[in-house]
């Protein structure tokens, strides 16, 4: 009688993933920022142009109204308090240039306010590529 001996020794499979995965170069992923600009009504086009030249992936506009002290508005005859609010997503490596150009636009053409908020998470690489405008 012959007993079939079952080979039970687990073949030691080497997991090479960890060794082969080491990236040869650092990943060029930069953080995203949510950039909000508030300008007077009908001044959104120039701001969007600035954002577009700095590879903003997405921008949308809504209308609002300012709440600066009303007495002063009436006194100066500036009853138009309509504002354009521009929301955009830009890469943080572009933020210094955008800031500079928006500041000079505020100085030259129209007063306004702009600020950036850090985006903490994005779901999925395709969304990241869309928002950061790095699609190939």
């Amino acid at each position, binding site marked *: 009688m012959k007993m079939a001996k079952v080979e039970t020794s687990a073949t030691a499979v080497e997991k090479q993933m960890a060794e082969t995965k080491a990236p040869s170069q650092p990943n060029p992923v930069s953080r995203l*920022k949510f*950039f*909000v600009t*508030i300008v007077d009504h009908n001044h959104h086009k120039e701001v969007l142009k600035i954002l577009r030249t700095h590879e903003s992936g997405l921008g949308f506009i*809504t*209308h*609002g*109204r*300012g*709440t*600066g*002290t009303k007495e002063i508005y009436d006194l100066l005859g500036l009853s138009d308090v309509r*504002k354009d*609010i521009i929301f955009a997503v830009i890469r943080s490596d572009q*933020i210094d240039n955008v*800031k500079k150009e*928006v*500041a000079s636009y*505020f100085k030259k053409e129209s*007063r*306004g*306010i*702009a*600020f*950036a*908020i*850090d985006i903490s998470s994005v779901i999925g690489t395709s969304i990241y590529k869309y928002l950061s405008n790095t699609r190939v």
Partner: protein
Amino acid sequence: MEKHELIICIVNNGFTDLVMDAARKEGARGGTIFHGRGTGNPDMEKFFGFSISPEKEIIIILVEETIKDAVLKAINKAAGLETNGKGIAFSMPVSDTVGI
């Protein structure tokens, strides 16, 4: 450069003056208002058989970090959830401010 905080306040329609007056008293200079629509409590509609207008107004105010707490407290007192304004307010840090 001074740090700024963005205060976002969502109140029922028509309560923005209360919010802005309260914020201005604490040192905020100005805000921007836009419109929105609340989505809370869809059961109310079924119960009453007609839709209640959920119109909201959203106020965004950029303030210095030092007065943020005072402004939030004042807004809560003037138009918070216990009042008819039924407002909520929160703040978040912002970077790279331009134009202030």
